[in-house]
């Protein structure tokens, strides 16, 4: 319950910052996805809890605000958390590497799903090559730039909420 509450607050702040700040700092036509980075960092922390609820909150909130199809952010954020959970159990010795991999895969998946949904389901004419060159790759670069600072901040935050047990 506390985890869901923390998640709601942090994800809400992230979505607000995404709309009011991050979207005004583009690289070509791409922009960073603060929610994706925050979610990845939280999901990779070993003591963090309720990360699936965080993904649900992020998906519902973004789907509600954005004009893209509702299911795109919902599915994408759940997949990102699933990838992070897989990597957490396998690449536990170098979580920062897992964070970079999660953000990389997550961004690609999110954008490919968005392009697919817009082009084939909503019949909006956006070219694959143009989308990848002008939106996806710049967004990927920005997301990877945000990865390290947000990993540090979210790790500290997770350690604060879920302190290590002293034996």
């Amino acid at each position, binding site marked *: 319950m506390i985890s869901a509450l923390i998640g709601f607050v942090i994800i809400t702040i992230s979505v607000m910052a995404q709309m009011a700040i991050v*979207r005004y700092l583009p690289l070509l036509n791409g922009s960073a996805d603060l929610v994706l980075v925050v979610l990845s960092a939280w999901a990779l922390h070993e003591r963090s809890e309720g990360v699936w609820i965080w993904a649900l909150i992020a998906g519902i909130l973004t789907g509600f605000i954005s004009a893209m199809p509702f299911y795109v952010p919902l599915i994408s954020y759940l997949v990102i958390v699933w990838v992070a959970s897989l990597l957490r159990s396998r690449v536990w010795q170098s979580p920062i590497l897992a964070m970079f991999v999660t953000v990389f895969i997550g961004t690609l998946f999110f954008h490919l799903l968005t392009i697919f949904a817009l082009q084939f389901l909503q019949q909006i004419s956006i070219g694959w090559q143009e*989308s990848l060159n002008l939106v996806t790759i710049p967004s990927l670069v920005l997301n990877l730039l945000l990865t390290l600072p947000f990993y540090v901040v979210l790790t500290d935050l997770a350690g604060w909420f879920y302190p290590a047990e002293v034996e």
Partner: protein
Amino acid sequence: MKAYTPQPLHIVLVILVVTGIILVSLGGYLGPALGVATEPLVAAQTWLSARYQVVYEFLTVPRDVASLRQRNAELENENAHLQTQVIELQQQIKEAQVLYALLDFARSRPASQYVAAAVIGRDPSPFLHYIIIDHGSDDGLRHGMPVVTDQGLVGRVDAVTAGAARVQLISDPSSTVNIDLKNAQTSALAVGSLTGDVVLDLVPQDIVLEPGDLILTSGLGGAYPADVMVGQVTSVRKRETGLFQSGSVQPAVDFANLRAVLIIVNFRPVDIEPLIPTQAP
């Protein structure tokens, strides 16, 4: 005890000495002698004064440093406060300028009723060109209402909640606006794109398009009111084999720096979708 009584000789002697000193002084011969006599005194006085100053500062300066630090902190605090006020006032001036421009625009078109709204964000997805405004259905906003600024057409209301609304910009890839080319006296389409550029499409081949031609809404289709400025033609692409020619449009509105917009609330968009024939399976 025997009282001392000055003798006349002593008095005369004293008067003579005093008169002599005065005369020597008036003659200017006393200065060097006095200088030699006072030099050690001045040096002693200087030494004593310097030592006193050191002791005085030792006793009083720590208190002064503390008070100066406190005063400095107060002044820094006041300075920060004033700087904040300056920034706030500059912000208010900018907002006021935007609102004055919108007000002028609204006054110039008394037939339309406007609701002014501030832009509070953009769509989280970089693939879409939408803005979020701080007015919603509580303020009379409805789906499809046109959104403008003093410069020209912005887009239309796409989704509404009680206190906010999402506006689709004319630069969005799914946006299409029926337009009139003012100089060419013909209708065409202004279509958005992924990059946020607006493209001119479906212009007949026999029309002469020139860069700089003004583009206004035509009102066809019922989605937007007529004669709202959309932008200017910047370049023309004409192929001999094509059915139509196309071109690039410089929108009249700077979407990157959009701070406030006007929603035309007395315009009811017409939904012509049921009239569009569908292909039989």
